[in-house]
């Protein structure tokens, strides 16, 4: 009897795999790597200004009101797409600190002149050091940082118009 049961083992294993694979086919493939730093403080950093127009960014700048930390770059196409939404966020009172990844001052200035400047500060991260430090794996990404410098929320990819109220709500939650 026992040997009979053993003969069914391959079928059972296969059925388990087929069920799993079938389920996964119906799921959207998650392309993003989420940061596991949510709920933890920002690492210490102090970045030079990304161009002459605005001061650089440091951990010390995240105090008082909750702020948005926007990881972006002038060479990144989705960053162009999210520029109007950043302006809308700024218009509704959000303070946005930018970190420009692997970027040049002249390119940053040109990008801001063309697509608008929603930032209060922009730090330059030429070797993605801060980006790696907060668990970000691409551009653009937007983090909500509370008044104590703790990361509260991560938005991956460009900000769409429907994301604006959600980010404002996250800022409110972080208060």
């Amino acid at each position: 009897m026992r040997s009979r049961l053993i003969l069914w083992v391959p079928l059972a294993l296969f059925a388990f795999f087929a069920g799993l694979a079938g389920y996964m086919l119906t799921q959207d493939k998650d392309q993003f790597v989420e940061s596991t730093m949510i709920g933890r403080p920002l690492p210490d950093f102090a970045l030079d200004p990304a161009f002459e127009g605005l001061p650089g960014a440091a951990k010390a700048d995240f105090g008082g009101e909750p702020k948005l930390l926007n990881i972006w770059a002038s060479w990144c196409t989705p960053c162009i797409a999210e520029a109007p939404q950043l302006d809308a966020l700024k218009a509704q009172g959000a303070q946005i600190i930018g970190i420009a990844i692997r970027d040049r001052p002249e390119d940053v200035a040109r990008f801001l002149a063309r697509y608008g400047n929603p930032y209060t500060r922009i730090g330059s991260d030429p070797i993605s050091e801060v980006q790696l430090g907060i668990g970000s794996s691409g551009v653009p990404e937007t983090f909500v940082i509370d008044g104590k410098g703790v990361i509260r929320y991560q938005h991956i990819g460009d900000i769409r118009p429907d994301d604006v109220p959600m980010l404002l709500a996250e800022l409110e939650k972080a208060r």
Partner: protein
Amino acid sequence: MIAEIGLAALWLAAALAVLQMVSGVFALRAAEGEINPLAIYARPAAVVQAALAVLAFVMLLYAFAVTDLSIKLVASNSHSMKPFIYKITGTWGNHEGSMLLWVGVLALSGGMLAAFERRLPERTMGATLAVQGFVALGFYAFLLLSSNPFERLPVPAAEGSGLNPLLQDIGLAIHPPTLYAGYVGLSVAFSLAMGALLTREVNPAFARVMRPWVLGAWVLLTFGITAGSYWAYYELGWGGWWFWDPVENASLMPWLAATALMHSVSVLAARDALRTWTIMLGVLAFSMSMLGTFLVRSGVLTSVHAFAVDPERGAFILGLLGLYIGGAFTIFALRAGAVAEGKRFAVTSREGALVFNNVMLSAILAIVLLGTLYPLLTEAFDVRVSVGPPYFNPAAAIFAIPMFLVMAVGPLLRWRSDKPARIQFEMLLIAALVIGVIALVSFFGSYPFLPLLGLGLAAALGVAAFLPLRGRKLTRVPVATWGMVFAHFGVAVALFGMACEGAFSQERLAAVAPGGTEQIGDFAVTLESVAPVAGPNWTAIEARLAVRQDGGEPVMLNPQARSFWSPPQSTSESALLTKWNGQLYAVIGNQAEDGRWQIRLWWKPFVTFIWYGGLLIALGGILAIAGRVRVDLKRRVAVEKGAQRRADLDGLGGVPAPVPAE
């Protein structure tokens, strides 16, 4: 017209697959000795179907050769300015074309089986052809319903969008066709196993029919994996030859199952043992090749190796997988209990060693399967993990090391029962080699544990591979035995290459100004100049590297960084200097702001032995096929002659002739 002929041929072939299936079922249901009038169509249907499927493939080949841009597949995967060889190989450098190649080979092997195989009982043959037709039908449906390679564009494209530059390489001409042929050869083994299981004809005669198919598939898989590994090694530009990437694992798993199957079918043929086990492995080997197809094309796992993925097609393949493999395992569970147990044997016997190693191979297969699928399992719970070399290497080694040790002594044992004391000398020799080599190498430096062990095992295996020839007259050793010796020696050679690459590789990454020299191993590499060059569909910057070994005459190496414009993509073309004892691997990277160039150099001692070993293993398989086929033919001729003589003697009314020796 070309596309329409191809499409019509495919539909006709699908119809014939139905006929083959139905007719095969009638043959299966016929009583012993009775010939069902409907059963006679199975064989001709398989043969004609093969011709039609091959015709369809040739039509697509032609469309790619002339870059017929009215066909969607050609327009989206080819380009009129691509070199001719890549136009041809581009036929299977995409999903639809490679599936058509797969189906073409499937039908061709089914046709060959139907045309030439006369040894099996008709009922078993009928069942086998029915299964083969059923499998083929599923793939025809897949092609025709979801991946039609002959689809026309409403308006012909002005220009094609080109082939992924990584695929524009001679590797594409060799690696996929051999691998597919190997996968498909396993489908014949699967059909035969199912046929034998359905008719309960699991016996040595059946094993002798199955063996050449398994051996052939295994040779092709070995060769395909070896070629693929070398291709990835020189094309990806970082000197890695095996990444434990899901797509690589997808090709390794059928190979592991086929290796086990090949040994088990030999035991069944020679000793009438391991009946259920052989059937199980026959089903498993084909499941693994279908599973590979599913993983590679559905996109459920991410891989570095380029493949167009599509969840909808993934669902179709999963459906086929469920039908064939689920069905096969169900029949297996219902029927295998009824297959009489084969002959018995002792632990210390040739069979015992083979069983041990088959179990080890299956365990390695289980580990690879687990590591490959585990990320899929955790993603179902929204957790993402990565499983890579640091897991696979030691986990596989747990089972590979005892396997290699048993592999060294197994061929020295006698069938059925043997005494360990008889091969005492050989065992001591093997142990001495393992320990001696490890001690010697550790004396010269400290190296990681697994490569070190690999060196010891490689030395022992290399010697042990030839021990079965000891005391035998070499001219009288059967060809198939030579095949085994070569294949086992090939394993030692490949293991040696892997261990050397792991233990002794040297790496030099540097920013070099023109005129500057870097030292790696015994080589002084001077960057003489960097110049732009142009190819048929790319431009590149090319470094001129002068390589001097111990101050000798310089040899030029010209690695390139290529930019293709259709599709726009860059690749780095490594330059290799092959010596008998290793390879110098050179890559050019970007230019730094100060004008220096990033140069990457590796000296990889004996790395080529990995692929020489793979080729030796494949050669061993070819020798084994040649030897078996020769013996089979001889036997057939002897039987015919005997029958003829008996008939003559009967005619003369003389005494009965002695039965010809087997």
